[in-house]
């Protein structure tokens, strides 16, 4: 009976009800949309990094820190013999990383030099152009589109690379750009010079050595052997997760604000309704409803706002979001601008879990905001309610 009455009261509502519902529904839609963007962004960054950088996980030499160029001086080791079959089966690929100085068009650039097996299949970037047959004395190199662009280099252009060998002496390589590749992961591109693994090893005098090993996705990771440390995809994705988390924090501020406004509107509606409907309250009490039940009636009415808003946001949101999730959003920018792994088109990610989580975090608040004003009714004597309702 209470439910029916509450529902009627809500449905009979005029402009105020409609506005409150509208504000609520919009807030939910914006929240769902923003959250889907952040989720989609994280999912995309994760996928791209797994495809183009992380593969099925990596082994790092002890002491290797990708953010500390000095760590590269020590962080090399040979691949342990028990893993050689994996190398031959194409399940494990070596990567040697060195510091170097490039001189594109006469300018000086401090770079990371990455020696890679041109036939590697662990990541989706294609390094076979590093196998190009070139005259003796020149070494093929590949650059990411961003680096090549920044340095003004076209395919076929030459530039010099200076490296420090294991013994401490400097050597120089004459490089020719055989391919500009596209990677959505900036770390694979910016300030990276890619060389064939054997040429780099030879130039720096580190035969058989590598800095990290990439495990092909799906291959079983053998137990780590010193000085190699296993880095699972999860560990490697940690900073992406943190990045996404910090972006979400920004979103949280926005939709917390929106929710605050919606809840304020609801609170206002509730307080006003209780003030205006004293006569109805008194009548219900005179008919024999207890104060608690009248309180619940009004609480229920407020909660119905929340439920209706959830319903509307689903009704409007489902087709809209399904469409956006399918076609993607053209951001007009890409990760290049932000230095994060992203593509031009972002696919918002809607999961049942995210939607339910959103609703589940709102509804208790709706309940509180509905209950709070309604609780005042329990302090109202029936005679007072009727008397004040007459005015």
């Amino acid at each position, binding site marked *: *009976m209470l439910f029916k*009455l509450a529902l*009627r*009261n809500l449905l*009979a509502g005029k402009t105020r009800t409609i506005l409150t519902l509208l504000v609520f529904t919009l807030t939910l839609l914006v929240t769902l949309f923003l959250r889907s963007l952040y989720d989609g962004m994280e999912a995309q960054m994760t996928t791209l990094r797994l495809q183009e950088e992380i593969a099925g996980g990596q082994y790092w030499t002890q002491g290797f820190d990708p953010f500390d160029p000095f760590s590269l001086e020590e962080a090399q080791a040979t691949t342990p013999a028990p893993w050689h079959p994996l190398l031959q089966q194409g399940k494990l690929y070596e990567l040697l990383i060195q510091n170097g100085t490039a001189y594109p068009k006469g300018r000086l650039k401090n770079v990371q030099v990455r020696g890679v097996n041109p036939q590697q299949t662990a990541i989706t970037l294609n390094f076979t152009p590093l196998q190009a047959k070139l005259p003796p004395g020149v070494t093929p190199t590949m650059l990411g589109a961003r680096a090549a662009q920044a340095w003004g280099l076209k395919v076929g252009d030459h530039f010099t690379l200076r490296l420090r060998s294991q013994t401490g002496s400097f050597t120089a390589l004459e490089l020719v750009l055989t391919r500009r590749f596209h990677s959505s992961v900036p770390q694979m591109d910016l300030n990276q010079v890619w060389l064939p693994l054997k040429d780099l090893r030879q130039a720096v005098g580190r035969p058989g050595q590598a800095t990290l090993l990439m495990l092909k996705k799906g291959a079983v990771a053998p137990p780590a052997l010193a000085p190699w440390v296993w880095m699972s995809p999860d560990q490697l994705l940690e900073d992406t997760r943190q990045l996404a988390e910090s972006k979400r924090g920004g979103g949280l501020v926005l939709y917390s604000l929106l929710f605050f406004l919606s809840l304020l509107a609801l609170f206002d509606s509730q307080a006003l309704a209780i003030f205006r409907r004293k*006569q*109805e309250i*008194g*009548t219900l*009490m*005179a*008919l*024999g*409803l*207890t*104060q*608690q039940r009248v309180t619940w009636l009004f609480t229920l009415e407020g909660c119905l706002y929340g439920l209706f808003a959830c319903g509307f946001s689903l009704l409007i949101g489902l087709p809209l979001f399904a469409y956006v999730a399918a076609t993607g959003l053209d951001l007009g920018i890409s990760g290049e601008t932000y230095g994060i792994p992203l593509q031009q088109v972002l696919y918002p990610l809607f999961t049942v879990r995210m939607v339910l989580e959103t609703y589940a975090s709102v509804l208790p608040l709706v309940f509180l905001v509905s209950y709070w004003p309604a609780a005042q009714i329990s302090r109202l*004597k*029936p*005679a*007072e309610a*009727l*008397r004040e309702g*007459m005015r």
Partner: protein
Amino acid sequence: MRQEPLLQAKEVDKIYPVGGHDFYALKNLSFTLNRGEFAGLIGPSGSGKTTLLNLLGALDTPNRGTIELLGEKLSHLSANKQALFRRLHISFIFQTYNLLPLYSVFENVELPLILLKLEPKERKKRVHEALEWLSLMDKAQAKPSQLSGGQAQRVAIARAMVKNPEIILADEPTANLDSEASHGILKTLRQINEEKGATFLFSTHDDKVIGYLKRKITLTDGQIVHDLSLPEPLKKR
């Protein structure tokens, strides 16, 4: 049967704090209402009629004294027990009708029976019976906003009688009605009193109402100054 006490007020005080001091809306008031009476509280505005009705109907509690209905001391009950008592035994008719605007006539009348948890079939039967008594059958599906004042008050009367309460308390039921509607309603109420044995207590300063009463209790400044029972109840008008 006439002499069976239904409702008793004993030495009742009702105090409202007004501007820092205590205002006695009712002072040391005692009286008894027997089953089957058709009585009215009369007196000037502010004499305490509504205050007394509210106390008798367990809508409020006295500051002193006791109110007994069916041998139960209402003033000693918890708020919830009082609500239950109202639900079971007491009906109200208000000057302002107080129908639920979103409910149809039928639903308004049905509400007390829902609260009593009667079966839908039984409810329907009793609502129809009440609506017939008040010649409202053709309005069963109407909303209160579509009714005239007289019709609305008849719906309120149907709602009051439908649960066969021990007592119906009516606070100035005709104050908002024209003369014709008032007489119609008063006749019906007398009929309900005589044919169904329902006990009525009014509050009024309307001469039309006073003319129908079988007992007139005059209040002045929160005290009973006259209590007159007519030996020969009016049969017709």
